[in-house]
Structures are given as C-alpha cells and as structure tokens.
C-alpha cells in the first residue's frame, strides 16, 4: 500500500485516497472545433508510462482536495507532489511532462488557445 503525503494533511495510507488518472489533460476550450478523432484523443487516450508518470490524486477520505503526483510506475516511488494548476519541478517530472505526446495534440492546442485550466 502506497504512503502518500497529502499537501494538506500529511502522510497517509493510500486507502484514504482516490486515484484520478493522468494529470495535465487540458479540457478543450472550443470542443466543437475538434474532429471526433481529436476529441477522442482528449477523452480516451491515456499515457501508459513505465517510469515517472504525472497523475492526479484526491484525498477523498480526508480533506477531499485534489493534487498532482509524479510517481514512478515501475517502482512506485513518489518523486514529487505539487498542487493542481501547477507544473512539476522535479527533473523527472519535467521530462515526463515535456515528453508526453499530448503536448502536441490538437486538443491541448485548442485548450491553450482558449481559457485554460490545468
């Protein structure tokens, strides 16, 4: 069982948390401008990394806050924990962020052209 440090509550067992899948999937600002295929890329296509992976967790049985985690999927080492809306600062996290195919996707460009969340 993972030991995850909630930025608000401190270290807790992972059964207090809810996994939220890949982080930094920007929601397109003008979805109607995307083809079905481009929209499907945003919606269904997920990175399946072996190694550092950027993902979201929520402390669902605690403070209910969402946050981002850089986790090595091969070793389960937690490399970095950082707030929603921010980008990773660790070298592994930055590399994983920049190396993600999604950075070049039509959906992400669409999102960045409009109002952007993260």
């Amino acid at each position, binding site marked *: 069982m993972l030991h995850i440090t909630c930025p608000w509550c401190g270290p807790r067992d992972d059964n207090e948390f809810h996994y939220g899948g890949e982080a930094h999937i920007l929601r397109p600002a003008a979805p109607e401008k995307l083809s079905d295929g481009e929209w499907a890329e945003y*919606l269904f296509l997920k990175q399946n990394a072996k190694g550092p992976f950027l993902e979201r967790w929520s402390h669902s049985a605690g403070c209910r806050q*969402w946050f981002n985690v850089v986790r090595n999927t091969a070793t389960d080492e937690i490399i970095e924990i950082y707030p929603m809306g921010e980008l990773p600062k660790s070298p592994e996290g930055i590399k994983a962020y920049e190396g993600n195919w999604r950075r070049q996707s039509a959906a992400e460009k669409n999102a960045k052209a409009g109002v952007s969340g993260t």
Partner: protein
Amino acid sequence: MSGQSFRIRDKGRIDRSKPVRFTFDGKSYEGFEGDTLASALIANGVHLIGRSFKYHRPRGILAAGSEEPNALIQLGGGNKSEPNLRATQIEIFDGLEAASQNRWPCLKFDVGAVNSVFHRLFPAGFYYKTFMWPASLWLKYEHVIRHAAGLGKAPPDRDPDRYEKVHAHADVLIVGGGPAGLAAALAAGKTGARVILADETADWGGSLLSESDCEIDGKEPARWVEESVAELEAMPEVTLVKRCTITGYYDHNYLTGLERVSDHLGAAPEHTPRQRLWKIRAKRVVLATGALERPLVFTDNDRPGVMLSSAVRTYVNRYGVLPGRKTVIFTNNDDAYRTALALEDAHGRVAAIVDVRTSVTGPLADAVRAKGITVYENHGIVSVQGTQKVTSVEVMQLDANGTGVTGTAKSVNCDLIAMSGGWNPTVHLFSQSKGKLTWDTEMAAFIPGTASQALASTGACNGTMGLADSLKEGLKLGAEAAREAGHKGRAPAAPKATEPEQGGLRPLWITPGKAKLGRKGKHFVDFQNDVTAADVQLAAREGYRSVEHLKRYTTTGMGTDQGKTSNVNALAILSDVLASDIPAVGTTTFRPPYTPATIGAYTGRNVGKLFEPVRKTRIDEWARANGAKFEHVGQWMRAWYFPKQGETFRQAIDREVKAVRDGCGILDASTLGKIDIQGPDAAEFLNRIYTNAWLKLGVGRCRYGLMLKEDGMVMDDGVTTCIGENHYHMTTTTGGAANVLSWLEEWHQTEWPDLKVFFSSVTEQWSVVAINGPKSRAVLQKLCEDVDFSAEAFPFMAMKEGTVAGIPARLYRISFTGELSFEINVPARYGLALWEALMEAGKEFDITPYGTETMHVLRAEKGFIIVGQETDGTVNPLDLGMDWIVSKKKPDFVGKRSLERESMASPDRKQLVGLLTEDPQTVLPEGGHVVEKLKPEPPMEMLGHVTSSYYSPNCGRSIAMALIKGGHARHGQTLHVPLEDKVVKVTVTEPRFFDLEGERIDG
C-alpha cells in the same frame, strides 16, 4: 502405548513435567509441552505422515520449520478444521486432533499409489497434455483428481473463530528473531527507536536453539538469547511479537504479519482472538529471516526418513528427539558434519558420511573422523531402500565430472538420511519488496542485491553465514536503521562468538543414479508437487525455457510451500539443460504470502453485522415498529413495503400503489442525496455540469437536471432548487450521492478552479418526507398555516419555506409519481416528529405509508427513469428519449461534444421503450432478453433487455421498460422474451403507461 522411545534423555527445550496427549489419524500419542506435532511424532517413532500429491508416495518429515513440503496436516474437526498446516509448525496441546491428508482409504495402504506404478502417465505438464480436450469433460476430470489427490479439505461452514487486526507504526521493523535479528533489535532498541521484532516461531533465538557447538561471550547460545530478550523486554519502545509470520512486503515499507495468538492453546481464551493480522508501516525494515537448507536431488530422495540435515540437528538439540538410530549423512558442504557430531553426542549412530566433494578437510571433518565415522569422499547415494521408512542406501563413487558413477555400489544400513545441499538465504521478503537478487557463486545461492525500499538484510538471509559475522552485522544494521529513522546512537560492541570453522561447498545439482535419469527411481526436486529432475529436463527440452513457464508447466514451486525447498534446485537443473548461467535464467517472482494465511484474519471483525456500516433514517424506528420489510440501497436500509396482516407482497404493493393515486401516500425519502451549493458562480457551475439551462432559475424554483459523463453517457439525475441568491440545493439518486459530490469537486478543483462555488454534503442533515396523491395538499394544510398552497401561489416545481407541525421546513412541490406531491425537508432530528404528525393529520384521508417498491411502480407507470436501472453507463439521453432536456443553445456542458458524435444518435442504438405482455397478468423478469427472431434454442440475436418490470394496479396490467436496439422505431412491433420455461410475447410501446397527458400533477 509404546511411549516416547525416540526421546533423548538429556537434550531439548521441551518441558518434561508437562505431558501432552494428542491424536494422529485417530491414534493417541504423548508428547511434551514445547513439542511441535512433528517432533512429538518423531518421539513416538512415527515417520509416515502423508502421501504425495500426484504419485501418492509415502512421505515423512523433511524439515523443522515453515518450509516443510510433505508433512501437511488437517487439524481439528468441524468448522474449526484447518487444512494444509505444516506438522513442523503446529505446537501440540492437550486434545489436539491431527489427521494426515491425501490418502485413501488409509495412510499405510493407499489406492492412489498405483499412480506411482503408472508414472509414465504423469509426465511434466500432464494436466495440460491429458485434459486439453474435450473441454466438456474437464469438470469430470477435475472432480476425480481433486478426490483422489488434492490437499486438505475446507471446513464445511463459516469460520466460528474471531480474528483481529492491528495497525502498527514502527521506526524499525525487524523480521526474524535469530542471532542477527536479536542483535539488530538490541542495537536499534538502545537508541530509543520504536522497534517491532517479529518471529514466526514460538521461541526467540532461531538457529541458535538448534546448536550445541557454539558460544557467545562464553555462554551457551540459548543463554545469550534469554538475556538479550530480557533486555529487549525492558525497553519501553520495543514490541516483541512471537508466532508472527511477516507474510507480505508491499509498497513503501508496508508489511503484513499473521500472528497465531492462541492456536497453540487449542481454544482461544476469553477476549482473545485466534489470530491477529498486523499491518505495519515501518520507516526502516531489517530483514533477518535466515536461510533454508537445500535438499540434494538423488534417487528416491523423498522416502520417509530422508530429512534435511539442519532439521535433524533441530530435532536433536531443540526438541530432544532422535529422528533415526542409525544415520547416513549426505552432503556437499561442512555444515552437515555438525549434524553428525550432534547425533553422536545424542547417542545416535552415524553410519557414514557421503560427501560429493572430492577431498574433505578441516576441523569438522577431523572431528568426525576422530569419532571413527567413515567419510565417503566424491561419493553419492545411488539408491534408497525402504518405502515407508528408509532401511538402507547404496553409495557409489562419482565420475570425473559428477554426471555418472563408477566402481561398485556399497550398501549401508540406516534408518535416517540427513542431507544438505547448501543454503538458500530466505530472500522472499526482500524480493517481494522489489529488491534485485544477485547470484553468489561461493554459496551457489541468490542473495539480496540492490534494494528498492528502505531496508537492510542481515545474517543468513544476507548470505552472512557465520555467527560472529551475523551478530556484528545485525548490531551495525540495527543501529543504522534507527539512525535513518531519526534516532541517535552507535552500534554496541559485538559479542565474542565461536563456532566450528567451515569450508566451501560443491554444487552438484543432480546426484547421478545407477540408471539414466528418470529410468529407475525418482530424483525429486519439488516434493509437494511431485516434480522430478527428469520432469524439469523434459520441460526444458519441450521448449519451456523461461523459468516462469517451467513453473506453470511442471507445477514446480507451486502449492502451499511455494517451492521453498525446490526453487533453486529446479532453476539450476533448468539452466544446466539450457547451458546457461543460473542468474541468466533468473528466478520466478516471489509473491505474498510467505506462508499460507487464514482468510479470516484478513477479514478480521468485518463479518456479519460488522461487514459494512448500515445507514438508517430517523424514521427507520417507526417503519420497523409498523411491520415494514426492508431492502438495502447502497449502505442504506430503506423501507421496502408495509404489509398488513396476512397480505402477500403483491397484495401489499397493489394496495399501496392504488392508495397513492386514490388518496394519499407517504414515503420516507430521507436517503436521497443532498448537496448544498453556494457561491457567486454556483449557477454557472450548474450550467456546465447539467445538460439543460440553469442561469435563469429564479429563487424558490426547482428544475430537473441530467448529468452526463464527458463521454456523453447518463451519470445521474435529480432536482436542484434555487434556495436564495447564489444558493442551491441539489438532490441526487440515493446510491449516487457520494459519487456526484466527488464529481462536482473534481470538476471544480481540477478544471474550473476560477469559479467561486462550494459544495457540502447535507444528505444526513435533512429528513425528507414525501406525500403524494390528490389528498396530499389537504393533509399538509392541516399542519401548515404559513404557506399558501393554492396552485397559483405554490405551483409545480416550486419551493417554499414554512412551518409544518411547528417544525421549520422547506417544502418542495416536486413529484416522482406524477401526482400532486410535496417533499417536506426538516432538520434531520425532527424527521420522526414530522412523520408522526403527518400520519396523524392524514388519518381522515386514509394516508398510506409506502416503501421503495411502490415508489418504483408509481414512477414506472409514468415512465420516469431510474439511473442505474434504465441506464448502465452506455446509455445517452437520446437513447432515453430525453432530447428535451439537452440544451441546443449552451456552447458547452460536460458531455456535449461527445453527444454530438454522429454515432450517438444512430437509430440502431439501444433505446428505451415500453413493453406490454400479451397476457396482461404476466410480469416479465427484469433482465429478460428481448429477441425478434425466435429460435428453438439459444443462441438467438438479442435486441436488448428488460430494465424495469412491475404489475401496475392502476393500469390493471403488467408494465415493463426495456432497452431495445432501434427501439424508438419499433413501437407497435411484436417481440419475444424467451424464458426458461416459456416464451412471452410482447408489444413495443412508448415507455409511459399512465396519465399520459399529465393531468394529475395539480391534484
């Protein structure tokens, strides 16, 4: 009674003043307190303990610890009975009943042993080869196999014992209470660190309890153990847990342990569980799990009386029993010479030492030879006589490269063979922790390499085999672990330890026999699964070159012992055939648990009523007192229906359903999910989450809303009301409440953090009573003077605040029945008072309490969907015919883009329809398959399934809803629902059956 004729007079740690009586296969025996079942049976000269899995060969005791593959026992009777326990671990108590397994009709004569004669029918992979076809016969085969072979039997009914869990946090967890583990605990404990030391046995000291030829600080090792344990017990932050097997090593230093709290007592004392599951999070872990001796792979090495050399020493020194009166030692290393000396010391004769090494020198060999014991250098055992107990062996000289034998065979009489093939460090937990193993050529074994968690290995499990080195290393690593966990302190000076000096070993993975391998006699590798060296070689030749494939094909390393004594031998034999290095072949994955664990311990107290929390409303008590039947809805207990004396289910439901439409019915709706939403951007948020428009909802107005997932499929529905400026009250389905709250939080926090809006669950804060039916207004008016109930002042889909029966309330004019209806919300604690007041006021109108079943019938009559019943995550609003609630004007909402895909409106999607059975009295089963082209038997093309089905007393017939392929275009068609005993003909209709014009809503 033959007595304990194999008991050694002056050895052992058993308590001779406390005799213990037990039975084995119905026969009564005596042992002493401190005996294991294995040592007590040996004391009584019993060596035939079980039959092997595949060939039903007689088997005895191989080991003295948890690695035992053969001596498996069914312990106790009835529902307390437990299968597959190792006789070597069972502590005896008065009245213990043990039975052998896998024999029929009895242990000494076993019908299944003919399998052994037809052994050519059981080659490697015989399950796969024999039972591949036809598949339909597999169940039959399996039944026969399970009966004839198989292991122990599961108890017939539920486990009557009590189990507990403990959650523990440690600075340093030390696994194993042998010399290295005790040393680590002493060093860590002295720093003041919080230490947990666990050992799977009943006694501290590990291997030290089996040795008589070493000293620590001039003391007997057992003395040092006693003093060390006393010192540890005096440390307030140190917890010592005996009989606790650390079974699993998981992520981030999370380990589980199974403590057998009272198994050794027979019955658990009051307030004491049978077993306790430890869940430990440790900052640092020190593994001191020791090493397991390897068997040698020689002809018929499985006969009762063939034992691991170190186990023989344990039986002699720790338990004071003699496993044989005349022993042949068979070894490839010096350690077995200690066993020879221990046997001589206990007045057991050693007939010979057979050593595969070409030249044996050193102090141990000298000591043995000084006793006049013959040492056969460069020899191997080539045959074993005696099937139910060893009677003699033949030994021959090995040829130049050890693959064959030369010269003539010499016969040696004996009743025990003590074998030693070297040692395998117990790296199971290290490997579970994802640590990488490396191959140590000198030891010919895997030892811990790179760790991937905060741990250290010490002592034999680290390949540190000497006593002095183990103690020193244990102290050092114990102190280091404590420091890494934030404590200060140095390792204490290591005690002076002496023990016999040892030389190296000669790994000879197969001892050649007189005939070609597999021809005469069997070289067993895996005793529990009856896998031989020939099987491993055959599998490799057949192409099973990966060790994981080999394992599954031959079953080596499977079973309850998970190959503790067999894995490295199998691996070495495989790599020999592959002409590859052992480390290149690699090991199979070590998985938890280390030894079999009782499922009851994992369940702990979460059984029966404590299985899951039960949520009850404030009106629950009244419903119970008034004869309600209940059903589970998620964790909630909801009143299902209220039968009157002598009423059947159907009669009760028909009465309730009619009462609502004819007069007035009352429902406890408190379980509905309720979320309080506040903030200046609340309306904007709702507008993005729901499919319809929310920006212009006035204060005091309610609106029905549908939520989609981003993939366009229906997720939840409910009514949301504008309570005041920037303040909304959302309702969700009973089962979906927690999900919806999480959904809103996720969108807010991760996608739209700029919106100023807050969500609070208020499900438990409000009691909700719904009154439905044409008389509901009249009832309510009697109790409420500060609200104008006229249809103009209080229209449908409006909310008013007022006082009902003196209780401050919110009244929502919303309806899940199509009738005039009010949902009265009061602060939760007034729920029962409100209910009772309404019942009293409604008496003159024959107010009728109803439950969830009637609620379902009433909504189905009106064609209202239930999310999760009419939908299953693949149904979109268009499928439901709910286009009316999907805004065409809003630029975006969750699910909009997905819903715009062409395929989402495809006419051949499964769509919601009504079904009317040909015979109006026939009620379809929910889940029934709907077909168009009926065939005499399946398979038939299925168009969809029945989602809701009831008898409707208001329609005077059965009604049903279904999701049918292309359903919207099928109205008027006749379809079929084939059931087990008949076929029901149905007509497709609109999914609405009653009050089609909606005229009843104002009463």
